[in-house]
Structure formats: C-alpha cells, structure tokens
C-alpha cells in the first residue's frame, strides 16, 4: 500500500468513449487515502471513465499516468456471472485475495452460501468487499450502493467516510448519502 497523500493516477484532457467520445477533456487525480466522486446524469460517461482507466481502447485522447506497478480494482455496476455458478462467498473473496476481516456481521454469516442464493443486497456488498478488501491500490467503484438496504448503505457510508489509508477510491454514484459520506473530492460531469 502507498503512503497517504501519494498521487497514484493522473489523467489530463482525457477523452473516453467507443467509436466517438462520450466525455472529453477530463482532468482527474487520484490520491492514496482519498475518495474522488464522479457525479453526472445517466449517459454522461461516468462508467466509461472507470473502464477507460483499465482498458486503453476506450481512451480516445489525452494523457494518463499511473504509478509504477499500480493495481486497479474495478467493481462493475452490474452483477453478472453469479447466476447458476457454484461459488460461495468465501471463494469469491479468495479470488481477489480479499480478507473477510471487517465484514459486517450480517454478511460474515453468509460466507459459505452460494452467491446465487444470497439476496441482491448481500451479493452486492460481498462483491464490493471482494474489491475493497483486496490488495488493490486504486478502487473504481461503480454504483456500489445498488440493491443495498439501509443496513448495507450504512456500512458502505461508514467505509467511504474512512477509506483505507493506502488506497485511492474513485466512486460513481447517484446516491446523495454516499456522496455526502465520501465528500472529499467531487467532479461534476456535464450531460
């Protein structure tokens, strides 16, 4: 893990998209121990920005600098691939090297259940934890509050309020309570 305050990733004038730019001229700096929130309407390109950090084909222009050996974790918005898969929670965490220490008690009891037998909220928090508690330097969290109930959202807010010191977090959300919890750096993306 990097010391708090270390710049881990810097983007200047970044344009992202597929065959044409969805978003142009984005400046972004991710710092260890800080949460950067991307806000904007649906279709503005927020999720594409997160994907573009790991997929060069989505970067159409601009410059991206990453700290040497940087490990990027990415929680995608949609939970796909868990249906009809014989995989339990404990195995999911092991796949990313995430520790179960610190999991909320209501989820720690579900670690031996198959993922497709969990509720939508339990699965979402476990997916989030499998990225958040893994040895990544930068965490790209795309709508981590999806499907979470009040208890899950409270746990997520607490985590965002004091994220791990050595990790930089970039958050995409429409949930105001998460924005407030993570209000350290906010980038507003126009439609």
């Amino acid at each position, binding site marked *: 893990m990097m010391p708090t305050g270390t710049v881990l990733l810097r983007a200047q004038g970044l344009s992202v998209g597929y065959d044409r730019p969805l978003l142009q001229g984005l400046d972004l700096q991710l710092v260890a121990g800080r949460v950067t929130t991307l806000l904007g309407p649906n279709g503005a390109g927020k999720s594409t920005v997160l994907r573009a950090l790991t997929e060069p084909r989505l970067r159409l222009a601009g410059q991206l600098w990453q700290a040497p050996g940087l490990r990027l974790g990415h929680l*995608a918005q949609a939970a796909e*691939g868990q249906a009809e898969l*014989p*995989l339990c929670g404990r*195995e999911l965490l092991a*796949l990313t090297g995430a520790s179960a220490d610190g999991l909320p008690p209501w989820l720690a009891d579900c670690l031996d259940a198959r993922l497709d*037998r969990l509720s939508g909220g339990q699965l979402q928090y476990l997916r989030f934890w*499998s990225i958040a508690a893994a040895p990544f330097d930068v965490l790209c969290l795309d709508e981590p509050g999806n499907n979470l109930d009040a208890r899950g959202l409270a746990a997520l807010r607490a985590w965002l309020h004091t994220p791990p010191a050595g990790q930089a977090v970039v958050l995409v959300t429409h949930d105001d309570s998460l924005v407030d919890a993570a209000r350290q750096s906010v980038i507003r993306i126009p439609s």
Partner: protein
Amino acid sequence: MNIDLIFDPLFRLPFLTGLLLAVWLPVLGLYLRLRGEWLAVLGMAQLASAGALGGAVLGLPAVVGGAGAGLLAALAKWGLKRPSDSAYAAMLLLGWAAAVAVMSNHPLAEQAAGAVFDGQLYFTGGGHLAASAAVLGIGVLVLVRAHRAMLRARVHPALGPPGAATRLAFDLVAGASVGVAILSLGVMASFALAFVPAWRAFATAPSWRSALWRAMAMGLTAYVVGFALALVLDQPFGPAGVAAVLAVAALAPPWRGLRGGASRRR
C-alpha cells in the same frame, strides 16, 4: 452375459485408460461451462473425429491422429473471431460432415470410425493410456495456474480476462483431451462425461470445491457402471457410458441449504 469378463486382466489397461478420462473430462467440463463453452466440447470432438479419420487414412497412429486433430480443433476454436454457441454448432456440423465424407470414401477410415463413434474402449492399448495420463497431468498443471483467473473473469469481468497464454494453454489442453478421449470412449460418451456431471454440479454444488468433487464422483461412478454394463451385455462402451452418465446424474442427491432445507433462490 458373462460377469467374469469384468475381472479379466485383458481389460485392465482399457479400464485404467477410461478411468483417467472419466475423472478428467468432468473437471474439464466444469471449466468449459464456467466459460460458457460447453458446446465447444462437441464441436471440437466432431472436428477431432474428422481429423482422426483423416489420420487413419494417412497411416498415423490413432492416438497421434486424435490428439493432433484435437489440437487443431482447439486452434480453430481459438481463432474464432466471435466465440459463441453458434460458432461451436458450426464446428460440430463441419466436423460431422467431414468425418462422414472421409469414412464413406476410404476403408481404413471406416474401420477407425467404429472406434470414434461407437467408443471401442476395450480395444485401446498402452498408447491410449499414456496419452490419457499426459492430458490429465498437463491439464491439472494448466488449471492450477489458470483456475483463479478463469473464475475471477466470470464474477468480476471488469478485472479483465485471463492472459492470452493462459487461454491458449487451456484451449489446447481441452482440444488434446477431447481428441484422446474420443478415440477411447467415443464422441458422445466423451461429450456426456464433459457435459453432464458439470451441468449437474453447477446446479447442485454449494461451492466450487464441492462442484469439482461432485463432478469427478459422478464421472467415476458413471464410468465404472458403464464399463461393467457394456462388458456384461457385450456392447460398445459409447451407448452404455452415455446411459450410465445420464442415470448417475439423475440420481445424484441435490444440495440442501446450510439450514437443512432447500436453498432459497433470489
């Protein structure tokens, strides 16, 4: 009906050959199903059967022809621009058409076709056993390295697919395994062992580790039953093996949830 045949030393080598494949094919099937490629087994099997028959015409040893054709089939799969069930179905049709065309036009191929389509396990020799052990050993080594990345790509696709070398190694092992298996067990018995236990384990196992054990147990049990059945009834292994796999899968106990009741579904 002669039950003593089961214990005849003449059949020990074929029994061992099939045993290795009956343990390995369900494991391979699990990882192919994980990647949504279960139909690829049948596509590769049909292409490999065509290649094996072509190899017989050229005078190649059966195992060399089968494994080589399986590797070529894997490369064909690897080279697909858009891997999908439709592409695997096209491989299947192409392989079947080529196999029947070769078989119909050459007496040597017609003879080899008996082994490939009926599953003449009882006529296999040391070469088949060595090839089965090789694909099992290499396959386990590949999976030890690839297992985590393959599962991670399924549940966290945003973290990226396994490396190109890993994917190619897995495809080549799958192709070679299918090529060796069809020459011993037959096309459909090989497909049944790769497809059915994995299908059942995906639906019933509480974890991936459990799925591996369940699939292997189903494959092993079905194989022993099918082997004995075919010998006692004087039938080729293929149909007896397929029937045994289906029966064992149907009788396999369902998984019960942690609290003893049927598990809740979302």
